[in-house]
């Protein structure tokens, strides 16, 4: 395989709290650039904690985490090198995406750009306008993010994660509880992201997604894994009827929307 490893877990223990009993043990797993992983498992099986560990929010209970070939450790304060590495990964939390309820929809998406690029909020709002449009969030731009519907909140969180143009996007159960129209939108958008969407200037994004149910992602995800009984198991690699088929079945999917 020519693709580069972007995230590696080596013998990792995944624990919800420091010192607590690990939810998953001995996870050795590599995510390569261009992968589209779908991780399934029942509630409480450790999917969300696994994703937060991958994102560097929680420390590994055991073993090691590497990002883009470099060891990463969760520390209280990050140096500029770690901070730069972190910006290459985006994380979308589940259940409304933990949007900043004090800010508007547009400000949520613009905040990381303003913070990291040192530009004013006004300029960041202007720069993220195409992304907002691609997410169909224009009409909600001025609304407080905490007051929009759950499905739209999840898109705000996606926009916020994409605003920094990450190479890897981690999505924690993004379609849980969404209606069929939102679900369809997510499926199509993520397929386009994996192939290279205009919002990422055509650059394919590596995706790792968790789900309660794998069925919505059949034929879309490329690699599947499961968390069950404190164990990590890769189910299929790769799925034959994968991304290319999904794209071919949805003509116009990659047409520029921004």
């Amino acid at each position, binding site marked *: 395989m020519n693709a580069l490893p972007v995230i590696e877990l080596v013998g990792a223990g995944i624990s919800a709290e420091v010192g607590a009993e690990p939810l998953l043990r001995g996870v050795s797993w590599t995510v390569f650039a261009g992968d589209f992983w779908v991780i399934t498992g029942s509630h409480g099986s450790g999917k969300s904690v696994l994703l*937060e560990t991958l994102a560097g*929010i929680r420390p590994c209970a055991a073993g090691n985490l590497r990002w883009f070939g470099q060891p990463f450790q969760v520390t209280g*304060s990050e140096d500029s090198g770690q901070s730069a590495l972190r910006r290459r990964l985006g*994380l979308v939390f589940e259940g409304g995406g933990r949007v900043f309820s004090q800010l508007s929809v547009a400000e949520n998406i613009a905040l*990381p750009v*303003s*913070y*990291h690029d*040192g530009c004013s909020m006004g300029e960041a709002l202007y720069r993220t306008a195409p992304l907002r449009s691609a997410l169909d969030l224009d009409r909600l731009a001025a609304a407080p993010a905490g007051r929009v519907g759950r499905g739209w909140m999840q898109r705000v969180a996606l926009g916020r994660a994409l605003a920094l143009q990450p190479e890897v996007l981690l999505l924690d159960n993004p379609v849980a509880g969404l209606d069929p129209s939102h679900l369809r939108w997510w499926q199509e958008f993520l397929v386009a992201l994996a192939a290279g969407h205009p919002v990422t200037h055509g650059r394919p994004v590596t995706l790792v997604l968790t789900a309660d149910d794998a069925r919505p992602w059949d034929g879309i995800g490329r690699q599947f894994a499961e968390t069950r009984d404190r164990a990590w198991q890769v189910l299929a690699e790769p799925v034959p009827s994968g991304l290319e088929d999904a794209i071919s079945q949805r003509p116009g999917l990659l047409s520029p929307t921004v």
Partner: protein
Amino acid sequence: MDELAGRLGRRVLGQLEMIRQIGAFTLITFGVTVTKLGVAPQVVRPLIREQIVRSGVRLLPIIAFIGTALGLLIIGQTLRLLHQVGQQELVGSLIVTVLIRELAPLTAALVVLARVGTPTVVELGTARALGEVEALEALGIDPIHYLVVPRVMGITIAVFALSVYLLLFALASGWLVSVVSNVSLPLGTYLGQIAGALRWQDFPLLAAKSLTFGGVGALIACYQGLARPLRLEEVPGAATRTVAQSVVAFLVLDAVFLVLQLLTFS
């Protein structure tokens, strides 16, 4: 007896641990303030301005009222009393000692704590409970830099500014009450007595006290809201702890300043 001693001991140790944690939180905040001084100024500066407006500008009317009331009560009454015993020349010393060195910074800090401390705990506690802190971390935004530093800086500056305004309102209303109550004290003499009683150390003392009270109150509020995970139902308890701990901290710091003052002024 042993049980009582044990409970007392646990309580004292618990308080010492709390002081240690607030101290650690203070050092972390100070470290982040220094190391991220030039980071994201376009984001942080508006947040500091917003905090100054919220903790300072919006509290100006209540500070004006309290300052005027203090002037009427303390300076007015003192002037009348001193006039009766023919010791009007002591008015400057009394004003400097009571108002400038003690009441102005303490009152301003207590007003800001009462009006802004609790909302700060609620906001940060809610942000923590809703997972917004982890969301900031995931975006590479230091939560201390984004949530704590602007609040601490804004509240600190606000308490200092409000102390000065409170003093000005108190001095003005104190002189006005002397005019109304027929105490023969011309404005020039009144101000001259105050100027005569002031020492150069009073200016840095007023600044140091008000900045310290503001900073400590803000840090305690931020610590209670942010430093440990809170469930939503725990937020009101944290707000109450903030007020109690801040008041105790102000009084302890006041005593420390008094000792320093006695050492440097003698």
